[in-house]
């Protein structure tokens, strides 16, 4: 790797230590300040890696709370990549990092069979031995990928266009959210283009140390984004983690690619829709009968983007909807982190306050932009969790969300 982040901006104030959800629940983790900037000085001297580096969930609360702008999580992820380069990676981590590729390899197998194959107790036990906790809420494959379904959507021909970056979660497990997104943009007067060329944003690979794979994804995605950007068509995503990867991680980790293709900024779809409302392009006429109460979870990777919580604002603009911010910290899942056997209990404890707030809220639904946050919230609280845009669609269509 050519990139190094200077640890010397850190003044050791311990703010990140206070807000790190993993350090909060386990003393086995050195904590962000120590494993990040402090340990980086040892790394620069060529000393051995600290074993607790794998405890960093890359949730970015250290970056969010650091008053000095130290990219602590980037230091950790770079160190992890370096470590994996030297010492190899595990099969388990490869599987968790390459969900999209597996989905592609398995695409000819019907979803029901795939899901039976993956989610039956015997397989779960094998996976458990292999390091994926048998209690973890592995999402089920959708019968068809979002992109297969998107091709069949008959969109009206509209003069304004947006390009939609679905992200693997929507594409492989949750196509309905993607379809709701198309509906909402159509409604606002935008035709939605879903290019075949987009692939996984690369974050699961970064978080699991598969640096070269992530670079490959970046190359392909950045070239594709540049193509649309040059035509003046905005590229949007409903997934905060994908957006953050393009905004922060790729320029930090692969500056040469960003220099070549230009910044691959994905706009927050919810913010875009909110702007549509302000411009008068999207009317928020809440036609659904009865009131709907929602408990909203702000994904850490959304909070890290420095743009507030537009998804929550959008929901709060709907007349019959009351949406309250749970404001109860990280859900614990951090992509694939909470699926890992040695991390499962940590992830559940990290999320326990949120689960409690969600359960106690008495809300009809939980809502959050991030797919794996939703999986974790449902798993931990028992309350069904939906993407804000899915709720928006249901309200505008005059029905109850499902």
């Amino acid at each position, binding site marked *: 790797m050519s990139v190094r982040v200077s640890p010397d901006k850190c*003044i050791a*104030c*311990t*703010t990140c*230590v*206070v*807000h790190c959800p993993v*350090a*909060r629940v386990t*003393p*086995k*983790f*050195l*904590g962000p300040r*120590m494993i990040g900037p402090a340990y980086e000085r040892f790394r620069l001297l060529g000393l051995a890696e600290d*074993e*607790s580096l794998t405890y960093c969930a890359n949730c970015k609360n250290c*970056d*969010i*709370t*650091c*008053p*000095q*702008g130290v990219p602590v999580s980037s230091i950790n992820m770079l160190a992890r990549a370096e470590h994996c380069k030297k010492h190899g990676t595990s099969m388990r981590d490869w599987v968790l990092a390459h969900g999209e590729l597996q989905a592609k390899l398995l695409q000819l197998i019907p979803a029901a069979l795939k899901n039976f194959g993956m989610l039956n107790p015997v397989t779960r036990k094998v996976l458990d031995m292999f390091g994926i906790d048998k209690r973890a809420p592995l999402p089920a494959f959708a019968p068809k990928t979002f992109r297969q379904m998107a091709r069949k959507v008959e969109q009206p021909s509209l003069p304004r266009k947006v390009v939609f970056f679905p992200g693997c979660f929507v594409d492989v497990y949750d196509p309905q959210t993607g379809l709701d997104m198309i509906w909402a943009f159509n409604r606002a007067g935008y035709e939605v283009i879903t290019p075949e060329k987009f692939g996984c944003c690369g974050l699961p690979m970064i978080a699991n140390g598969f640096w070269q794979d992530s670079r490959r994804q970046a190359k392909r995605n950045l070239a594709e984004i540049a193509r649309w950007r040059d035509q003046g068509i905005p590229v949007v995503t409903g997934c905060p983690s994908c957006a*953050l990867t*393009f*905004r*922060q991680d790729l*320029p930090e980790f692969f500056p040469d690619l960003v220099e070549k293709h230009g*910044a691959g*900024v994905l706009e927050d779809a919810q*913010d875009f829709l*909110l*702007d549509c409302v*302000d411009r008068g392009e999207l009317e928020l006429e809440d036609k659904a009968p009865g009131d709907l109460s929602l408990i909203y979870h702000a994904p850490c990777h959304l*909070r*890290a*983007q*420095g*743009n*507030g*919580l*537009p998804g929550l604002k959008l929901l709060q603009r709907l007349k019959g909807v009351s949406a309250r*911010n749970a*404001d109860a910290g990280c859900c614990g899942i951090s992509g694939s982190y909470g699926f890992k056997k040695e991390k499962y209990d940590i992830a559940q404890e990290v999320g326990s306050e949120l689960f409690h707030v969600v359960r106690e809220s008495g809300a009809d639904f939980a809502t959050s932009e991030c797919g794996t946050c939703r999986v974790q919230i449902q798993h931990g609280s028992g309350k069904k969790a939906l993407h804000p845009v899915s709720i928006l669609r249901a309200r505008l269509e005059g029905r109850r969300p499902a």
Partner: protein
Amino acid sequence: MSRTTDVIVVGSGLGGLMAALAAARQGREVRIISEGTGCLAIGTGCVDLLGYAPDGASVEDPWAAMAELAPAHPYSLLGAEKVREGLDALTETTARHGLVLRPASRDGKPRNTRVPTIMGTLKPTYLMPDTFEPDDLGKAKRVLVASVMGFRDCRPALVIDQLRRYPDWANKEYFPCLIPTPFDDAHRALNALDLARAAERPGGSEWLIGSLKERAEGCDLVLMPPICGRHAGSPLARELREALGCPVVEMLSIPPGVGGLRIRDALMRELAALGVELVENANVIGAGVAEGKCLSLDISSTGRNYATKARAYVLATGGILGGGVLLEPGRAIERVFGLDLALPADVAEWTEPEIFGSQAVSKVGVRVDDKLRPLDANGALALENVFFAGRSLGAHDPAVEKSGYGVALATGWQAGLAAAELAAAAHNTGEAATGGEQ
């Protein structure tokens, strides 16, 4: 994020949070823009008002001493009454969330107290949690100084050695003690916050009480690090006091100091209930200004720049350390608006030989009028819809005066009120102070 709001507060330290609270209580729509969480989260939880006079003398009555400060000092600009308003707003808010903060008093008059730290020093402060009984400190004869095994920040032997240097503390009998750690296998050095959290988990209060009960027998004071729970309103300190039958005082800790997090907790809960919007991880890098008004703030965050607008702005961006004040060769400037800040032309005069003395450079900051609006180099009003608060203000030296939180909360509160008033006026005239509402 182009949407216009009433008041934007930049910074989420104590000054920023108080400004947001003041404006929101006035019914204004408030957005906090914050890069990092501010130092309140790692502070001690005590509130200094004024610990030392400009001549270095220890201050007993901060209200009386305030009158002796230089005219440009933030306290002098506001006057004691307005400082008191901010202080009352803070104590009323934290009390609502179970954290009662109050000053010690003598002859019915509030006064400063010198509170022990985990380094064994005494630090003057004004507001303390009500679990502190300042009189207990003076009266105590047999003092148990407790810490926890594996907690390197607080060493009872060091605390005792250091405390003995103070005349009031020299003739007490001390008993050092280390209680067992609540963690089986810690991979890191524990800090006070780890222990405060452990004390709140199931079995935590039994651990604390069980470990201290016997050891505290015969003692009339227990000094311990701040580990009685991390939340505002945690009942642990009181439970412990009752169980031990003697006063328990949490010494002030180096970061993370736990107590500050308790205050932050209370304020954040209050702000959330008032619907204040928090934009995290956003760095204000500049502003659009025309005709003496701020029209918008330029934000940079994770690879993207955008502008955000309000009718009035409160800047609680911190000083040199917090990033609100930039030092450049030969000059100091305020970061967002580029205001020139007065400093001697000769760099050698920025500091003085005594390292713990009052450095000219620590007093550098924005000059403001009595409404906390910034002034230019000639003393004329620079921006009419911008108010400054906290460490970004010049003419005070919190490190030496022990006035940091006092200035932050007083100026934050008044800046928030002034911004709210201006925003309300802009509403009423139907004109957005920022030139164009959508």
